[in-house]
């Protein structure tokens, strides 16, 4: 009980503070860098930068057909755990209540046993992504500590969440506290590693799309 109070009180406060501090630091630190003007005459019919960026963000949701074969596993597995994470995080009743307590906004939740099933699939998908990273020569070569830390702080909340709900490996309040602490670890690591792609993917896809759309090229 003490641990639970610690995890959802001081630990959570600290984690959210680090998350906000680091995320804003990194985002603003990047966005306020010098901007190089692109003065090339855009092709006629170039969409506005915002429209170009938006279409780029959308277009990159699915690979070009020719790349699908070599990227099929990564793409499908990526979708499975991203959607799985979204469902587990956003549509589990206790999580909705947590967000409500924090931000005052709420939305309907899915049945708990449905979320549990989704979480189990998500955990499996995350494990598969780790196995792929360790066995695929390209991914293994380019992986860094960040990749493994980011994986761990994503996987652990899923695992401890499942354990807490299913009463595996400990008492509920202890597992709940550990679950919250792993979420704290996720929040603390988030700004400093690749988890930031949750924000950066929009900027990265967007900037490239603006460049390519003004050339009339595909993104």
């Amino acid at each position, binding site marked *: 009980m*003490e641990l*639970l109070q610690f995890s959802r009180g001081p630990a*959570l*406060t600290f984690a959210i*503070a680090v998350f906000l501090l680091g995320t804003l630091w990194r985002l*603003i630190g990047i966005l306020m860098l010098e901007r190089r003007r692109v003065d090339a005459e855009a092709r006629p019919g170039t969409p506005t930068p915002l429209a170009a960026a938006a279409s780029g963000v959308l277009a990159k949701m699915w690979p070009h057909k020719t790349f699908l074969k070599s990227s099929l596993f990564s793409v499908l597995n990526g979708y499975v755990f991203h959607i799985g994470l979204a469902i587990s995080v956003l549509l589990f*009743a206790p*999580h909705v209540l947590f967000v409500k307590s924090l931000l005052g906004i709420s939305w309907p939740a899915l049945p*708990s046993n449905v979320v549990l099933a989704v979480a189990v699939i998500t955990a499996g998908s995350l494990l598969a992504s780790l196995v792929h990273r360790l066995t695929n020569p390209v991914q293994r070569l380019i992986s860094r500590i960040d990749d493994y830390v980011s994986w761990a702080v994503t996987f652990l909340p899923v695992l401890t969440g499942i354990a807490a709900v299913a009463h595996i490996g400990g008492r509920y309040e202890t597992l709940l506290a550990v679950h919250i602490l792993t979420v704290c670890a996720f929040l603390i690591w988030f700004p400093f590693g690749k988890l930031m792609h949750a924000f950066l993917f929009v900027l990265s896809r967007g900037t490239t799309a603006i460049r390519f759309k003004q050339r009339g090229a595909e993104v």
Partner: protein
Amino acid sequence: MNEPATLGEALSRRGISRRAFLKYSAYLASVMALPASASQAIAQGLAKARRQSVIWLSFQECTGCTESITRSSSPTLEDLIFDLISLDYHHTLMSVSGDAAEHAREAAMKENKGKYIVVVDGSVPLKDDGIYSTIAGITNLQMLKDTVKDAAAVVAVGSCAAFGGIPHARPNPTGAASITDIVKDKPVINIPGCPPIPEAMTGTLAYILSFGKLPELDHLARPKAFFGETIHDRCYRRPFYDKGLFAESFDDEGARKGYCLYKVGCKGPIAYNACATLKWNHGTSFPIQSGHGCLGCSEPHFWDQGGFYKPLAAHAGVSAPLIGAAAVAGAAAGGAAAWIARRHQQRYLAETEAIDRSVGKDKG
């Protein structure tokens, strides 16, 4: 009239049939989740058990625990067990006896040295030398120490004795402490609850009497038989939780339909107690059945969990100003970092240009 030598003898004198006694033993074995064979062992053990000397101390408490155990609509076997143990001292029940009661306690301690059981309800104030609660001029702390010294075991009844309870709630003006905070050299069994379930109490005593040993305890010294599972896991409303059907308030459609009370603050998932199975008032009902969420009263600090109506999933005191300050600091640091980076880049540019000039490159 001679004092009956054993419990069995005492019961039969009271006109309790053997059949009723066996029935009780079977019931006890069942609520404590003991194997069926244990029923026979309990019956034999209890029948042969000598009357156990019990000293009941009441400290900072509301008498709710004693009420819970003694006030019943009709006398039951449990009550009789209580009657038939040698309750040599009960502060609350004997308060009218005044000085005589204290002598009875001292006499019992002397007579049953090393064998008597001390039952405590209420917490013990430690602040200012314990002056906030005294009996016959003796502080609770002193009385506890004196009484426990020659005891065989201590049973802390109710959340105040077990964990400090409401007197221990913030800001804890009397410095209230639990029995386990004070008694370190004797076995202590906690039977928390505000109040505890009578069967948990009598069952535990009966177990000790039957088997001559303490029952299996959890990490908070609670008998696992009664505190081994959460209310949530045994709650009849659990299917609604699993289906995602919740009462959003106490008077909405969901509440009327008996949906899960998780969203209105039920602490069932972290409350280890037997309310959902044994229920109260001879199996009539329990709080959730009456439409109110569990308070988690059998858990430490249940009073200080951030509100009975706040969902369990809610954060516990995330500091908005601190987080706001962190956000502002992050934004400022980001701005500063970008400014430093730009200056850094300018300096580098100047340096490279100086190098270019020094090697006389043509700038076109």
